[in-house]
């Protein structure tokens, strides 16, 4: 009897020890390759458990509603800013991150987290114009400007074949850029100009869409999108896999575009800070970091990773923009509650027109 109880205790203890070595990662969908996770698990003798979100707002809303206990989160810059101001993050211990020097300094010290007290760059996406190369060529259109998304003279040829992101901030940012303003302009007059520009173009668009446009591009139903660089990359991969007679390519508009830098941060309520630092340091290794880029075509801020990235990706200017293009990229800042409410009303007006 006593042995059984003892055995039970031992089993319980082993189980508890196991439970201690679980890293809780709250991440974007499909934002880390399975083999990378497997290698980390082998190296640390731990388990990585992932929860997923599909946009920052969803993640912030879940945390605001009290979700806790995540060790690591991978939010975009403006969401990092919001989390820092809420006091929801744990400062990093840089001594545990020797691989941090691999990050290109251009991506460090961003406005959302000066001197990277809380965040380590993970990957970035650009919001650009993606298109069906053969169709756009056939129609003799140029894609180097947001004009093709907003100007009826071009859109006439594309009626019902264009989708734009179903995101207030992203669409407003594109319109603001086209009008010559910053993506972070909060002047209500400028917002209204952007609104009117969007309303004028809207009849030519098929939908506001943030997810199924990848498939629609691949199938050939949609010819031009305002979308994320890695989605467009995915659409091209799928189109090639399906032996389509067209390629899906992207271009950075000359007016500039939004860059979303996703960073690894530690939630304050996470219970494995050491393991989390090991994970971050592991992901800062060029080889590991490159795997993600090779899988989904995301931008990579890691200098050491470049040598491991497939050349068709590393030489693609829409994934790795040159210095001249980099200057015209902007990251979104968080809006305050008043601005959010006004923007929501503008969005309602856009949708209802």
């Amino acid at each position: 009897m006593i042995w059984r109880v003892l055995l039970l205790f031992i089993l319980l203890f082993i189980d508890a020890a196991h439970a201690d070595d679980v890293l809780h990662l709250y991440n974007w969908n499909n934002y880390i390759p399975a083999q990378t996770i497997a290698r980390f698990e082998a190296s640390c003798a731990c388990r990585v458990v992932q929860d997923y979100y599909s946009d920052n707002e969803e993640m912030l809303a879940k945390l605001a509603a009290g979700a806790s206990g995540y060790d690591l989160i991978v939010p975009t810059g403006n969401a990092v800013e919001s989390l820092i101001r809420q006091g929801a993050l744990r400062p990093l211990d840089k001594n545990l991150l020797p691989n941090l020097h691999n990050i290109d300094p251009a991506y460090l010290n961003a406005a959302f987290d000066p001197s990277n007290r809380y965040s380590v760059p993970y990957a970035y996406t650009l919001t650009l114009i993606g298109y069906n190369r053969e169709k756009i060529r056939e129609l003799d259109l140029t894609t180097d400007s947001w004009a093709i998304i907003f100007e009826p003279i071009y859109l006439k040829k594309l009626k019902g074949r264009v989708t734009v992101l179903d995101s207030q901030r992203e669409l407003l940012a594109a319109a603001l850029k086209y009008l010559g303003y910053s993506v972070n302009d909060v002047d209500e007059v400028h917002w209204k100009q952007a609104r009117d520009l969007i309303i004028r173009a809207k009849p030519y668009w098929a939908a506001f869409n943030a997810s199924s446009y990848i498939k629609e591009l691949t199938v050939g139903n949609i010819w031009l999108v305002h979308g994320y660089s890695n989605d467009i990359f995915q659409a091209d991969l799928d189109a090639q896999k399906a032996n389509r007679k067209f390629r899906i390519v992207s271009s950075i508009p000359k007016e500039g575009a939004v860059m979303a830098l996703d960073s690894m941060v530690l939630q304050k309520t996470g219970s494995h800070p050491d393991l989390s630092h090991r994970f971050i340091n592991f992901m800062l290794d060029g080889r590991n970091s490159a795997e993600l880029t090779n899988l989904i075509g995301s931008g990579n801020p890691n200098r050491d990773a470049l040598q491991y990235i497939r050349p068709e990706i590393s030489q693609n200017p829409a994934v790795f923009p040159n210095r001249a293009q980099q200057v015209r990229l902007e990251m979104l800042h968080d809006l305050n509650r008043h601005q959010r409410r006004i923007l929501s009303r503008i969005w309602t007006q856009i949708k209802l027109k």
Partner: protein
Amino acid sequence: MTDSGHKHTRAARLAKYLMGGPPLLFLLLLFAVPSVIMVLASFRYPGEFGGLAPLTAADPNTLQGVTLETYQFFFSDLIYIKVFIKSFFMALATTLICLIMAYPLALLIALSPKKNRNLMVLMVILPFASNFLIRVYAWMIILGPQSVLSQLVNNFLHLFGNAPVHLLFSPFAVLIAMVYVHLPFMVLPLYSNLEKHDPSLLDAAQDLGANGWQRFWRVTFPLSLPGIFSGSALVFIPVLGMFAIPDILGGTGDMLIGNLIKEQFIGTRDWPFGSTLSIMLTIAVLLIAWLAAKLGGHRGHYA
């Protein structure tokens, strides 16, 4: 009622509480309490990061306390009323189409031999076996520009010299999926009502010289009104709050109240205004239910 009350023994009363208690508690916990929270939230300021601003804060510069600003904001621009009106028309159209399609079907099932009825009802319920979202996504394929349906429609339009139309990402796509998803909710209450009709009433009407149409319009239809009302409520109210279908199948203009409310809680992180919109929606639904009950009551008298 009062007579039987005296006869109630203690045990019977206890049984009554035991049976009625849990559902009552359930309703109270999951409907009344959240509603009260919503009403209270609508008078607060939004928190900077979602949630609510504190009622009292040490720092006098932070927003705190209670306010009417969400209600002022709601009425400051007609746009929100317009979203409501649009959603009501969508819900009304869905309800009417469901009614027109469901009534003959329910009647058919009710008039079938008893042994077939269960099978037919099962077939009405069968779509529930697969997930709601998958069924909505399936419509993306059915309505997509390369689908057989789209090509048939556009070939037909072409014959008459009309320009091709896009079925997907349109109010039409939203309406069709709304009807598809909610049709069983109209069929089932109608069927359970029609099934109980006493066939001897129709025989009596026939004996008194009523023709087929008269028998339906003067006997069956008035008797089925309760079924129509409950079916309509089961369709109208969920459609009013639906956000997934316009999100997936809607075009650039298909925003309904459901989408607007969802956006307040997720994208805009403005819980007080989201609560205000929900309360306005509840008030509007109650108003409509009250109106319908009044109208229904009148009809009942004539019947």
